[in-house]
């Protein structure tokens, strides 16, 4: 049986971006949040280090400095109009979260405390600055909890454990979504004047990642299959400090508080790569430095394949009070005592800079000429505004999700108040129904898990921190073969109740799409910029490449590329040195 619902605003995803949008829209129009996870399970909850805003509570600061750092950190690919909005609104965003009850750590004067974070500096690169507002090392947890609490206070409606399968489009206008209810196996049609996607990242395409099992790019996947473009997919951030083998994140705050990266000889190698800010250089640089150290045989351990995060010189009280969770991760998962020894770390796939292209009001772009899709919005990690360009600075994502989630919610309110409810054809759900039925028909030749593992290894080996034409071509070819194998697989479990084999199966399909988009975009970009580093094109080339990639799946299924100019502003591209 199919069920029908009608709303003014439907928000897909209940992480920080989705809940910020829901709060903004929910106060004004009939709003529903549809999420495959209970809201508090969203990956925003794992964010540790902080959210930047130039409050200047601890040291002199200004939003322009924050904007400069963001643009420089992005390797000049960020759109500077969007960056200005984000850094200006950061201050109100943090203060508003405080008013909602977020328990930020405090200064001795009782103000919101701030700490250092990679790439954030005073006066255009002069020295590191204390800009990150934080709640111990569970800032994301507190943001997620606070927003969830406020949504409940405001009476926002939630559809939890509803898996969104498709976007309804009527004559080029967004008309709603189709979702699958995990508890019952029923399909739900949500008609809506406006829809916002806030489905998070897709780090699960890599073997070593800080991302949750559920971060599979469902939102961008749906968009890509609809023939709409994705932007800057080649830029994927590797965070320097993931727990060895596991990828679980140890926040940059560890280095912000004085932690140091060392190689097997105990050498503080970042001094050689970024003499001014050393261990607090942006993530892409530190990750590459770590790769070089390992490649040069200076990695630690039996196989010389990791480096050490040294916290032994940090005041033990600071470690226990300000970094309690991450020290516990090292103890629990690696059996390592961070107060006494270095913690084995490797770069871990962390953050998708690319995603669904949007305006600064979260409106989704139809193409690289900046036409929009009426009624359709996206925000958060699944979107690309673009404020992070080729490399995101730490603490700027929590900021992005709150600022642009809210802007999206406000834009939806405005749109829904002035536009009629689009008609949805009676058979709107049939396509999804047939799709699910076909997945559950016939025998399954091999476990999807095997195909997934191969993809994750391939992406790690050939499309991660260092890439080149050969490795990317090989990755593209294997993705093609894996997609063929995947097309032959079927869901064995035919149950209607909590069939997570079905949802995992669908999720993997989206991951394959994300991997394809990443690799094809990366192959075309014959330069190095931010998180995209090619050892066959080591230089940044602004004449050719100061532009955003737009990738679209054509009718025949083959991807095609187009480009959109970067919006420049006060800062002209210069070499990025720290």
């Amino acid at each position, binding site marked *: 049986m199919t069920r029908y619902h009608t709303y003014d605003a439907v928000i897909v995803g209940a992480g920080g971006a989705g809940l910020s949008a829901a709060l903004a829209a929910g106060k004004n129009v009939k709003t529903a949040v549809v999420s495959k996870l209970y809201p508090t399970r969203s990956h925003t*909850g794992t964010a540790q280090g902080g959210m930047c805003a130039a409050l200047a509570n601890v040291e002199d600061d200004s939003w322009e400095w924050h904007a400069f750092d963001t643009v420089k950190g992005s390797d000049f690919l960020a759109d500077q109009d969007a960056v200005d909005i984000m850094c200006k609104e950061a201050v109100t965003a943090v203060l508003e979260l405080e008013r909602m009850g977020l328990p930020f750590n405090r200064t001795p004067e009782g103000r919101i405390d701030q700490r250092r974070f990679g790439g954030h500096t005073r006066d255009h690169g002069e020295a590191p600055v204390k800009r990150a507002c934080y709640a111990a090392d569970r800032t994301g947890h507190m943001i997620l909890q606070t927003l969830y609490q406020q949504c409940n206070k405001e009476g926002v409606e939630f559809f939890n454990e509803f898996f969104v399968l498709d976007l309804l489009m009527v004559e080029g206008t967004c008309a709603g979504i189709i979702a699958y209810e995990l508890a019952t196996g029923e399909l739900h049609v949500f008609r809506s004047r406006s829809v916002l996607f806030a489905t998070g990242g897709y780090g699960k395409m890599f073997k070593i990642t800080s991302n949750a099992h559920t971060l599979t790019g469902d939102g961008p996947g749906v968009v890509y299959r609809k023939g709409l473009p994705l932007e800057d997919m080649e830029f994927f951030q590797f965070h320097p400090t993931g727990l060895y083998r596991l990828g*679980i994140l140890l926040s940059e705050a560890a280095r912000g508080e004085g932690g140091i990266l060392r190689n097997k000889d105990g050498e503080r190698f970042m001094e050689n790569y970024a003499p001014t800010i050393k261990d607090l250089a942006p993530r892409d640089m530190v990750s590459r430095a770590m790769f070089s150290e390992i490649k040069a045989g200076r990695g630690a351990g039996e196989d010389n394949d990791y480096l050490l995060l040294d916290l032994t010189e940090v005041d033990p009280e600071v470690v226990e009070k300000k970094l309690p969770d991450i020290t516990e991760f090292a103890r629990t998962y690696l059996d390592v005592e961070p107060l006494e020894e270095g913690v084995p770390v490797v770069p871990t796939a962390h953050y998708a800079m690319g995603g669904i292209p949007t305006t600064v009001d979260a409106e989704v772009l139809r193409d690289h000429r900046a036409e929009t899709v009426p009624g359709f919005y996206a925000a958060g990690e699944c979107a690309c505004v673009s404020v992070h360009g080729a490399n995101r600075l730490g603490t700027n994502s929590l900021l992005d999700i709150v600022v642009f989630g809210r802007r999206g919610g406000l834009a939806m309110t405005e749109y829904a108040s002035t536009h009629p409810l689009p008609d949805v054809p009676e058979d709107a759900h049939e396509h999804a129904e047939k799709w699910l039925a076909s997945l559950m028909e016939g025998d399954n030749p091999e*476990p999807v898990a095997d195909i997934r593992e191969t993809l994750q290894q391939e992406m790690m080996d050939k499309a991660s921190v260092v890439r080149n034409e050969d490795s990317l071509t090989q990755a593209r070819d294997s993705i093609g073969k894996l997609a063929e194998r995947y097309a032959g697989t079927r869901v064995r479990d035919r149950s209607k109740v909590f069939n997570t*084999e079905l949802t995992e199966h669908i999720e993997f399909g989206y991951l394959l799409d994300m991997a394809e988009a990443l690799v094809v975009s990366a192959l075309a970009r014959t330069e190095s910029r931010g998180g995209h580093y090619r050892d066959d094109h080591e230089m940044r080339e602004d004449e050719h490449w100061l532009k955003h990639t737009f990738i679209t799946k054509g009718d025949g299924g083959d991807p095609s590329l187009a480009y959109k100019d970067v919006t420049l502003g006060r800062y002209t591209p210069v070499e990025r040195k720290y």
Partner: protein
Amino acid sequence: MQVTLRVQRFNPEHDTDPHFESYTIDADAMDRILDCLHQVKWYRDSSLALRRSCAHGICGSDAMVINGVNALACKVLVKDVKQPITVEPIRGLPLTKDLVVDMDPFFSGYLAVKPWLIADDAEPEPERERIQSAAERERFDDTTKCILCAACTTSCPIFWSDQEYVGPAAIVGAHRFIFDSRDAGGRERIEILSGKNGAFKCRTAFNCTAACPRGIEVTKAIQEVKQAALFGSF
């Protein structure tokens, strides 16, 4: 090494009662129980139903009973548990399928205590942040850690026999606000928690404190809420 798991299975579409199935798999001593369950699901029986997301003890999806003890499957390592490893769903909430229970009653209990900041309407909106001293912030630090995994509530013998009881997690949620210097809703919440399904149902069994994967002193928080209700001191 070889690891044997005994997993409780139940599919409401054809089973009347739950039963156990055993699976022997290859695992590493440092693997999480969640990794073992994935081995089963991905390579042995794809129909096994469980919830999980972050895989490192933060999202609160995978509270289960592991060898008789409530824990997160992603936070217990093979090396730390005896074999065969028995895995059951948490108790006291309606069973949906295999290791999945209906969490809606749990979340309703949590929301019943109004777990959101209730500002004092009489106070003018501050232009900047409200001032809160580090000590005032510290007062409720412990209870801000809650990830709503339900490990505490579903380890509570009172909750097993009476699901009208709001349970430890909800009281922890209330504590987090009652002792926040910025909150003015203490009285409302205390009223709710002084009722027949509130904090005074707690018989200080301490199961909840032992079960909390975040190390929150749950029983202590409940005691503090009871004290606040009795003496109005918060």
